[in-house]
């Protein structure tokens, strides 16, 4: 009897029970490395292959969206620099405004990837913290030593600050007549371009491969990162920020806060931004994307993942509920009108209805979907209660 004990405990002889365990773990880690390298192995029919999902997300959705966003910031930067060279040319100014709109729209496509490179650089807060603080912007304009990016500058840089400089009343004259103001605009877009470039290049050079290789579901795995950011950005940055706060849903006074709409100064953009913000969520969910010739490809998405569990109630029914609610939400958004800042004041009840529709998706995604996927989104050790 004690023989086993000796085996178990006698570290000196090396014939202990832990030796096989260590060997097993070692062999296991070799297998682990191997399976990461080879990527797809499709010999199990009902074994959902997360590697395919991650590849689809990375190659067909995330990287192209970042590429697009980065290119848009480049175009905007060039437009602004052109304008700065010839500040009295209103044509140049107008092309800045056009480029601004497409940059803002393309930003919506990447906002939800708030993990990895984007979260390392706090891209979400450096790019789109609003409402922007115009006093701070006006203070920064004449300051030659001002540098963007520190926490104190978050509410006066990025797209909302550019929105103010390009779209506030009398913007053209103010920019034309003030070299400092125009130079500040250049600083702002240059910073945004640098950040966009850094995140985009992180994805294409190193992080993309890391992302694809992390096929587990534990905390910090790619799928965990995507779903955490997905839920957080939708709940907070879409539902709450784009519509909830302006509608006055979270203010004690209860009055709408028209100044809290996204792209407040552009007037005619907020609803379009909201409409385009929901699309990448739909795409990540469905795994769908457009190929280079513009044809819709139905790639692997969360819907396939859900259905792969086979449980009808929690698989296909949940999936069709989510799809139906995405459609309702998009329809609801289409009833909103620009300028949203006026709409939330004059049609508060209607805006609230739309908000409720956006809300319904949070329950489906955050509770039902996460419950079904069981992806561990814990922040700390958790023994399950």
């Amino acid at each position, binding site marked *: 009897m004690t023989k086993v004990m000796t085996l178990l405990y006698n570290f000196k002889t090396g014939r202990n029970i832990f030796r096989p365990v260590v060997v097993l773990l070692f062999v296991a880690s070799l297998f682990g490395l191997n399976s990461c390298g080879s990527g797809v192995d499709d010999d199990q029919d009902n074994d959902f292959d997360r590697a395919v999902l991650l590849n689809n997300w990375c190659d067909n959705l995330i990287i192209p969206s970042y590429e697009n966003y980065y290119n848009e910031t480049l175009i905007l930067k060039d437009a602004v620099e052109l304008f700065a060279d010839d500040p009295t040319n209103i044509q140049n100014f107008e092309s800045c405004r056009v480029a601004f709109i497409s940059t803002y729209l393309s930003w919506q496509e990447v906002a939800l990837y708030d993990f990895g490179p984007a979260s390392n650089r706090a891209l979400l807060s450096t790019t789109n913290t609003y409402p922007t603080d115009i006093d701070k912007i006006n203070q920064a304009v004449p300051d030659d030593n001002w540098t963007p990016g520190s926490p104190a500058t978050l509410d006066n840089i990025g797209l909302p600050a550019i929105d103010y400089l390009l779209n506030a009343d009398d913007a053209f004259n103010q920019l034309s007549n003030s070299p400092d103001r125009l130079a500040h605009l250049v600083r702002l877009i240059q910073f945004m371009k640098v950040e966009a470039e850094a995140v985009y290049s992180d994805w294409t050079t190193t992080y993309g491969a890391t992302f694809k290789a992390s096929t587990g579901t534990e905390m910090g795995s790619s799928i965990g990162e995507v779903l955490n950011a997905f839920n957080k950005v939708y709940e907070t940055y879409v539902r*709450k920020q784009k519509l909830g706060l302006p509608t006055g849903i979270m203010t004690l006074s*209860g009055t709408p806060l028209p100044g809290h709409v996204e792209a407040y100064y552009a007037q005619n953009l907020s609803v379009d931004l909201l409409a385009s913000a929901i699309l990448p969520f739909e795409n990540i969910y469905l795994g769908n994307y457009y190929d280079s010739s513009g044809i819709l490809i139905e790639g692997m998405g969360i819907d396939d993942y859900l259905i792969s569990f086979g449980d009808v*109630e929690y698989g296909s029914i949940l999936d069709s*509920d989510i799809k139906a609610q995405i459609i309702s939400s998009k329809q609801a958004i289409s009833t909103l009108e620009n300028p949203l800042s006026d709409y939330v004041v004059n049609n508060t009840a209607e805006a609230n209805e739309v908000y409720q529709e956006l809300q319904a998706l949070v329950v489906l995604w*955050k*509770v*039902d979907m996460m419950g079904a996927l069981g992806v561990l989104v814990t922040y*700390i050790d958790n*023994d399950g*209660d």
Partner: protein
Amino acid sequence: MVDSAPLFTFRRLFGALVVFSTLRFLFYGWINCQILNPLYTFPFEEFAFLPRPNFIATIALFAGMILGGISIMSGRFFRLGAVVFFLCFTYVELLCKSNYLNHYYFVSVLSFLLIFTSSHKEDHRLPVLHLNLFRFMIGLVYFYAGVAKLNTDWLIDAQPLSIWLPQHTSMPIIGWLFQYKATAILFSWAGALFDLTAPFFLMSRFRNYFYPIVVVFHILTWLLFPIGIFPWVMIFSATIFFSAEDHRKFWDALKLSFLKLPEATKSQSPNSLMKCFVTVFILIQILFPFRYLMYSGNSFWHESGYRFGWRVMLMEKPGWARFFIKNNEGREVELDLDSWLTPNQIKMVSSQPDMIVQFAGIVHDEYLKKNGEEVKVRAEVWASLNGRRSQLLIEPFRELSSIENSWAERDYVLPFDSVISPLEYSKLEKQLRADSNW
């Protein structure tokens, strides 16, 4: 009087493990995110009088844990060290419900018991009670964890393992097994059987063959689930069932003179006070986990009497809570939870009814303090239990801030079989609002 070598081993390993665990806690920066950063905490009601420690006091508490742990491990200033460790550790544990873990409670209980033993007197033969007290406690945790698994979710639906295991299909060698429902069923039954029988196998003459199963079982849970050091606590603790002779062989085999157990030449006689204490303690430990039987309904759902009962890894229960306040003028607004709670607290509040009520109280008091305003608080809470679809957890138009958490039935929790889905709720909401006095 028996040779208490198993207890000495336990004391040494336990001390080492709690020191490691405390350092790990510090290393991960949890001292900030769990103790210092939260604006509000959710103390256990019975211990709400304990003041919240500031930075210095927190450092002192953790220093106490480390020094106490070292003292337990080494046996020097043992009694004082055990008291200090127990008090510091338990203090931190009681600060906030959102950090509650069964294994923290287990560590508290074990360190509490150590105080009453003479497990530092390694050259003594001790009354058998000292050793058996720990064997009882460790055996009880296994057995009760097994009893808690005897429910239909676990045994029939194989939940939550059916949700958790398929996440590990990329695990080497055995990963492919996890795609099958049958694996979840097998693991569920095997897990329940293991927990229920472990204490008896460990006490029997088959323990030498069973202990490797213990090791494999816990390592498997360690690989599959984020349960921190708990598996190691159990792997170490279970050695207490081996004979004194085995333990002496173990320490001798290490061939390190300072670790060698001295011969037990002296002996300590039993103490009747200790006998009384042990009897009372055992009775409480046997009965306390069953307090959930006092409540009707599904205890996973209302969670009355759920904590401190060795119910481990039984639920996948994501939730989403929206809190609303209504001021004197009748204006209702939604709270921005992110500006009140940490992500972990939000997660916990979203599915645990007593924390929902507690948070409503916090909100009420805060408005009274800051604005001198009496507000009413309600919450719309969605939760999904073990693979079911989401349903309303509590009455959505119930004023919550005036509810006192007590041991009474939680009548604000909706019955588990009411199953109000989001779709139905959107139709019912106006009526429910009208029917309530919200």
